[in-house]
């Protein structure tokens, strides 16, 4: 019986190994890069690497966070007041209809390769963003209608648009409009993406090892810090060592155990494991409230009754309480409540299953089958499906709760877990399923225009399926200059989106980060990204 015995041994060991491997492999990732921190070294844990570190290119939080440290922007946004304050530009003025912005620039700023920052740098950067267009789609959407930059003299640049562009000043404080050195702009965008970025920020990238980490070194000659923060000079921590720790519990454990000084983007599920000496920083996110967005080209969502029934059928308070353990608030509008220009539309988002039933019945979904699912006169089941890459965790738990909630009004929510490879086979505009999750942060209501219009391929959900009234309302947001009128326009656009059942906002997410006992204080920017130059160690 020697053959069967060895076969059995083989089989069994592998089974055990695989279970162990899934938990252990992820647990070891950080050990090579994270070590005991010395006094002037800040160790940081991020949950993921980004494939692209060009500040102008795709806007994932991790890339934006690194960009925030290595590059500066023309202006900055005060995280407390939302006010736009000077940074590389000391002052600015606009013409009457906000189609021209004149920036007066600092003349003592240098990039980390020694070259000087001038008005020409502003022009070269914005020209490059337009030139690489689709690669820098967020920056390009901020610069919509860009006609060029006039270099009046070394210290003065005029940015011109073909019409009013009220959101541009705030946009100039975000990383997609970072100012980089000419040497970087000349490179192939792919090379920049791999981390060859020269900016004027308080840190420079010293080394980048994909999937392992990034090391940042402070610039000693830095003295032009943003006026939103106390520290205008060089960063206190000479070195910042970022490790990528993809497993959520391991990341939380790394902060708790002091393996890293600071953990960014902690998963809500792991907050209960943080040790007593760790300080948790929770900030409500700015941007769109975490939504499900219907693909309106799918048959089931061409039906307005179905779209309109989803919001009253959704119990947001239960989602916040169970899935997020009370760490988040139910959505009160299409924007999060913390976003400047948000509107309180919570009455539109109240849980009212009876109303949902009425809407569905009026819409022709008036027979309930034995399985509790509604059918229309053609006998079709009321089925809504979502496809997602299966990772378990909070998202899957959320979908299961929605499944239970929607079942109560007769909607069958079908979950289709797939591998990441399968998920990447279809895009936003040819999906074989009906709904998607989305996230987009920005401390300005104009974020609505980017996500919910039909204007930009790959970032506007209704691209190719324009809802003219919505586009009109959102473009008004860009062109309205008066602050009060802008708030009004934002509220109107959100109301319209909800009335037409074009978005199902669920909760206002929080950004969780935590630091250990070696850090005295930290600062987050207007998008809740850490500003490492402002971190202060304990004596």
């Amino acid at each position, binding site marked *: 019986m020697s053959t069967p015995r060895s076969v059995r041994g083989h089989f069994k060991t592998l089974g055990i190994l695989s279970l162990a491997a*899934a938990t252990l492999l992820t647990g070891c990732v950080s050990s090579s890069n994270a070590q005991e921190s010395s006094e002037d070294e800040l160790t940081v844990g991020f949950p993921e690497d980004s494939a692209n570190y060009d500040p102008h290119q795709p806007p994932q939080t991790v890339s934006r966070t690194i960009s925030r440290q290595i590059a500066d922007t023309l202006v900055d946004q005060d995280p407390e007041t939302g006010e736009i304050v000077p940074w590389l530009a000391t002052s600015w003025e606009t013409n009457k209809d906000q189609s021209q912005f004149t920036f007066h620039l600092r003349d003592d700023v240098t990039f980390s390769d020694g070259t000087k920052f001038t008005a020409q740098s502003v022009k070269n950067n914005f020209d490059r963003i337009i030139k690489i267009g689709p690669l820098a789609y967020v920056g390009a959407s901020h610069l919509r209608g860009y006609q060029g930059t006039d270099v009046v003299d070394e210290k003065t640049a005029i940015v011109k648009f073909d019409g009013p562009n009220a959101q541009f000043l705030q946009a100039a404080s975000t990383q997609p409009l970072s100012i980089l050195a000419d040497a970087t702009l000349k490179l192939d965008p792919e090379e920049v993406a791999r981390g060859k970025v020269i900016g004027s920020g308080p840190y420079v990238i010293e080394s980048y090892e994909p999937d392992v980490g990034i090391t940042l070194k402070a610039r000693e000659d830095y003295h032009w810090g943003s006026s939103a923060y106390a520290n205008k000079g060089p960063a206190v921590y000479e070195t910042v060592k970022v490790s990528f720790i993809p497993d*959520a519990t391991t990341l939380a454990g790394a902060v708790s155990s002091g393996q890293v000084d600071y953990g960014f983007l902690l998963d809500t599920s792991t907050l209960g494991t943080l040790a007593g000496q760790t300080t948790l920083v929770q900030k409500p996110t700015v941007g769109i409230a975490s939504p499900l967005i219907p693909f309106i080209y799918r048959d089931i969502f061409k039906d307005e009754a179905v779209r309109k029934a989803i919001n009253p059928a959704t119990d947001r308070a239960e989602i916040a309480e169970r*899935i997020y*353990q009370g760490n988040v608030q139910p959505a009160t509008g299409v924007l999060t409540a913390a976003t400047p220009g948000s509107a309180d539309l919570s009455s539109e988002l109240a849980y009212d299953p009876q109303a949902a039933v009425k809407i569905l019945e009026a819409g022709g979904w008036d027979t309930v089958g034995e399985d509790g699912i509604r059918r229309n006169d053609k006998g079709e089941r009321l089925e809504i499906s979502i496809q997602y890459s299966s990772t*378990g965790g909070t998202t899957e738990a959320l979908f299961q709760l929605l499944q239970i909630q929607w079942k109560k009004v007769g909607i069958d929510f079908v979950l289709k877990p797939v591998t990441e490879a399968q998920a990447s086979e279809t895009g936003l505009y040819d999906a074989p399923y009906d709904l998607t999750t989305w996230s987009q942060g920005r401390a300005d209501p104009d974020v609505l225009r980017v996500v919910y219009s039909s204007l930009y391929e790959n970032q506007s959900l209704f691209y190719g399926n324009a809802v003219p009234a919505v586009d009109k309302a959102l473009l008004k947001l860009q062109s309205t200059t008066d602050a009060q009128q802008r708030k009004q326009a934002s509220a109107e656009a959100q109301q319209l989106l909800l009335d037409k059942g074009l978005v199902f906002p669920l909760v206002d997410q929080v950004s969780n980060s935590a630091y250990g006992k070696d850090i005295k204080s930290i600062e987050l920017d207007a998008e809740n990204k850490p500003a490492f130059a402002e971190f202060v160690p304990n004596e």
Partner: protein
Amino acid sequence: MSIAKNLRRPSFGVAAAAAFLALIAAAALFPSLFARFDPVAVVGPSLAAPDPQFWLGTDLNGRDVFSRVVYGARMSLAAGVVAIVISVVLGGLLGMAAGYLGGWADAVISRCVEVLVSIPGLLLSLAVISILGFGVDKVAIAVGIAGIPGFVRIARAQTLKIVNLPYFDAALTSGTGGFKSIITHVVPNAAGAIAVVAGLDLGGAILSIASLSFLGFGAVPPMPEWGSQINEGRLYIATAWWWSLAPAAVVALTVLSVNRLSSQIGTKES
């Protein structure tokens, strides 16, 4: 005879293993007798600790973990059995063909098996799964396919042993057809050995299925399955240990029980 003797006076370990397996099998066949709640309904607060009402606590959505483990037994056990049946039937057929036909057929089948054996079983299952897609049924097929090579070897060895015995030659020379001889002489004689190994492999198959489900390939939510339940609760292991630990303990006990029983039978058999 020795099996019968052993079954008459089982050790405590064997008795406990048999009792536990009987319980799990009953849960798989009649889950509603054991479960106290609907496994996919919200019945309590989120992440409630085990108490008299919720014996194994609740999960994030407020579903009863005990009821989910009970209903999970059906999927996990059935998947394990399906996987073994696939391995035994396909492996047995190929092995007997190789052993009986010999020559080129044997060479081709045996080399293919050697190639498959050189690939770790779980990796092979993962490759199959990525073609088939998600779901417990597909996981069972994938694990079953990965188990085929072992049974090809056993069936081939047993067949070789029997076809070289004088009575098999006698059967052939007396005019019985080759196919019929295999059915009447090879299958019954090889069945014992194959059955023992199948029993031993059932534990491994259940574990492999749980592993693949843990990695997210298994049951499509909200249906409960042990491996995917362990995965669901993984992030909360520090704050709500019962969510992952309960299904994990059941998987471990089931596999240990299967191994204990089948190795007992295996020792007596040989």
